[in-house]
């Protein structure tokens, strides 16, 4: 078996992974990144909108500061975030954006003079100042007090990732792509590297490292309908959970977006509704005003998603070979508006659906979008439970997002957290040495070798990997989707436990040789079901509604009992995760208050006896 040794092993080579890698490589350490795909195909590339940083350069961003950004972030988290971390993030975001500019990101810049913009379908005028010409500009995003989101046209993630990877090439960071991590190597106290499978040859390999970083992005693909790339199946979280000692934080906090297109779940922007688009059911009836007479389609993301799901559960969805959906109607906006103001939507409809949104209705449904939960770390990015294990980006619960993330904060987090965590990794590398016990390494490798052999020889059973995966999808979407209640969650947990047993009895139908995709899924699926159980069990226990987590049977936000973060660990062989709780924040700059939208009662913390 091939064995590699390095100072820092980054599992994941998207923005967060590469940003940490760059910090360590610049300090002279040897760095290897593993990636399921070539680094530049990472899901970071798909982010179009932008990155929040309080630069205050543009006219609509005047008077902005890290303090205002901090307040928006804490409010957005529904007071579920770690305020110390949110503060670190907001203070460092401007530095990170300027550094990216120095490294080559072609940020859009301030152009002085008058220009117009739309808000709520109405036209307004603004004037950019001469003295700000050429500085990084910003655009508006939901939930922010100022225009703060730095961008490069509609390809922010793409340009930032390409710049980051250029920097990684320059510094000699090694990226081994088409590699999947199967388990961490650890002795219960120290993390020592990982056992991986090469997705070009199917061979197992061992990577030994003084520091291991998990930066594998979100785990949206445990849901059937997700805007995430197909690689976002939670691989990094699974190997952390499987240690039995590293907890995952707030796994029940999952964000949904109202308008993913059916069948491929690509997003069409909120701007459709902002500009006057409406949602219709199977009778082409506009249903949102029935539920939200004032705001209708313009209610917040989570509110609209909830009503859409509710409406489909009433049997008013449009049946299709891909499951029920609803219609988004933007026909009345006219060809000119679609070709100019909603160009991207126009293109998505034509390229991926083959329909013309000026003439046809767009099939949409609420779709999993972002995972606030992940590997629980402290403010330095160091994972709880194991020395030498760090995590950053969407894979981590660093926890600046709490229970709902603001648009433009996730892409910024990858780079800002990468910068901060990277510096801490360097500090750690300077001060810590490890030794690699060969017997331990051999045992971890043999365990994965054995799993592979058993799957190919059908030693444990003949379950079909796709059938079992579909059973997980069904259970999760029904019980732990947008709307949650005790009855459905209990059923969901029970079904998922059965699914978990079946996932351990999979037998391959193909020969499993080489870069076999059926084997890849079969190796991953039991872990994906465990993640699903962390989501469902966490959601069942959390008897309140906070951020994206909405309990029909507990509609109030309960600061008295639930101002805590869920920590899920999994003891080897256990049927369910073990849940523990910790306070959401040690430091309180802003006491819990109204979120500003979505209504709902709050049970204040002061009522605690």
């Amino acid at each position, binding site marked *: 078996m091939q064995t590699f040794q390095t100072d820092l092993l980054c599992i994941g080579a998207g923005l967060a992974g590469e940003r940490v890698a760059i910090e360590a490589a610049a300090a002279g350490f040897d760095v290897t990144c593993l990636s399921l795909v070539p680094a530049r195909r990472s899901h970071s590339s798909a982010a179009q909108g932008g990155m929040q940083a309080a630069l205050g350069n543009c006219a609509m961003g005047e008077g902005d500061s890290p303090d205002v950004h901090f307040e928006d972030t804490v409010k957005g988290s529904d007071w579920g975030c770690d305020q110390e971390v949110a503060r670190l993030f907001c203070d460092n975001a401007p530095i990170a954006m300027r550094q990216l500019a120095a490294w080559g990101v072609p940020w859009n810049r301030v152009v002085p003079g008058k220009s117009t913009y739309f808000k709520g379908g109405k036209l307004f005028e603004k004037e950019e100042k001469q003295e700000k010409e050429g*500085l990084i500009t910003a655009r508006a995003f939901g939930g922010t007090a100022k225009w703060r989101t730095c961008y490069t046209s509609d390809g922010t993630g793409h340009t930032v990732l390409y710049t980051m990877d250029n920097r990684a090439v320059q510094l000699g960071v090694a990226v081994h792509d088409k590699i999947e991590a199967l388990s961490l190597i650890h002795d219960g106290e120290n993390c020592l590297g990982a056992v991986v499978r090469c997705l070009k040859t199917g061979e197992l390999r061992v990577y030994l490292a003084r520091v291991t970083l998990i930066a594998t992005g979100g785990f949206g693909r445990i849901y059937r309908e997700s805007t995430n790339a197909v690689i976002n199946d939670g691989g990094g979280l699974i190997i952390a959970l499987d240690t039995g000692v590293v907890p995952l934080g707030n796994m029940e906090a999952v964000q949904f977006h109202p308008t993913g297109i059916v069948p491929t779940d690509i997003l069409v922007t909120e701007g459709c509704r902002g500009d006057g688009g409406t949602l219709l059911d199977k009778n082409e009836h506009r249903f949102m005003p029935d539920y939200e007479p004032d705001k209708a389609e313009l209610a917040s993301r989570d509110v609209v998603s909830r009503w859409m799901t509710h409406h489909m559960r009433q049997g008013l969805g449009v049946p299709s070979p891909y499951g029920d959906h609803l219609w988004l109607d933007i026909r009345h906006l006219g060809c000119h508006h679609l070709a100019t103001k909603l160009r991207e939507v126009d293109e998505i409809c034509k390229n991926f659906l083959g329909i013309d949104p000026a003439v046809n209705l767009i099939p949409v449904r609420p779709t999993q979008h972002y995972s606030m939960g992940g590997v629980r770390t402290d403010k330095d990015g160091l994972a709880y439970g194991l020395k030498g294990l760090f995590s950053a980006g969407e894979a981590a619960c660093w926890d600046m997002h709490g229970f709902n993330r603001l648009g433009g904060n996730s892409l910024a987090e990858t780079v800002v957290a990468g910068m901060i965590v990277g510096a801490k990794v360097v500090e750690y590398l300077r001060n810590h040495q490890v030794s690699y016990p060969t017997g331990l390494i051999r045992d971890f490798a043999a365990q994965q070798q054995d799993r592979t052999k058993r799957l190919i020889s059908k030693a444990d059973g003949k379950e079909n990997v796709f059938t079992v995966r579909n059973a997980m999808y069904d259970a999760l979407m029904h019980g732990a989707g947008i709307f949650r209640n005790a009855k459905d969650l209990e059923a969901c947990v029970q079904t998922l436990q059965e699914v978990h047993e079946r996932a351990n009895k999979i037998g391959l139908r193909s020969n499993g040789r080489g870069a076999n995709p059926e084997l890849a899924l079969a190796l991953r699926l039991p872990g994906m079901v465990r993640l699903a159980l962390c989501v469902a069990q966490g959601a069942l226990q959390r008897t309140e509604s906070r951020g994206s987590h909405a309990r029909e049977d507990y509609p109030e936000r309960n600061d008295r009992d639930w101002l805590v973060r869920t920590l899920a660990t999994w003891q080897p062989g256990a049927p369910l995760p073990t849940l523990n709780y910790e306070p959401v924040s040690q430091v309180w700059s802003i006491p819990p208050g109204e979120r500003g939208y979505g209504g709902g009662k709050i049970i204040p913390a002061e009522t605690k006896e």
Partner: protein
Amino acid sequence: MARNLTFSIFRYNPQDPISVPHTDTFVLDETNHMTLFIALNRIREEQDPGLQFDFCCRAGICGACAMVVNGRPGLACHTKTKDLPDAITLMPLPFFTLVGDLSVDTGTWFRNMAQRVRSWVHTDKDFDPKALEERMDNAVAEEIYELERCIECGCCVAACGTAIMRPDFLGAAGLNRLARFVLDPRDKRTEQDYFDIVGNDQGIFGCMGLLACEDVCPKHLPLQDQLGMLRWKMGWAGIMNLLPWKRK
């Protein structure tokens, strides 16, 4: 009426000693809004779980799913079956190392390309975290973005006449990448520096001007203009090289 689609798919697993290159046929009923992403996943789930192909973002942004569809390189994710006849032939991209079936290794080639064109901003300035960002004209930023939109899918080199004959050819993707830095005022390299990288037959002078690259580019990048601009600039730099007193 729903059609029955017949997919003829190239099969070969280089890791399997008994595998030989051949074509397998799969039949699917067409559904509304079906793309090759949906079709291939259905074939894998319902008919052959070992079928190898790559998708990542499945939204035309990452470039993972390039393959040859009825003879033409393109992205499978935004290829709709309703735009194709009911007989569909799928082949892996040529030029790149085959991983298996429709999956090829583009990562190794593109990383090597990035190293060859030294794909980063060359500057002697250190980043100062306390200073304001260096100003840039917005129009220049947008011009750079236009060239940076390449998603490294590999269609352009797969369709390139020179690349077929010359495996070390940088291809339109590599030349476009260099053009992006030529345009960037932050990059302090001189024309001679760029000439040293692409002023040869592996670079700009290898291009035969067939322009299939621009025809198949799924992002509609202006590759033809970039090749023309580079060839013109590098041609001049080459002539300067011939004049001994102009050489640095």
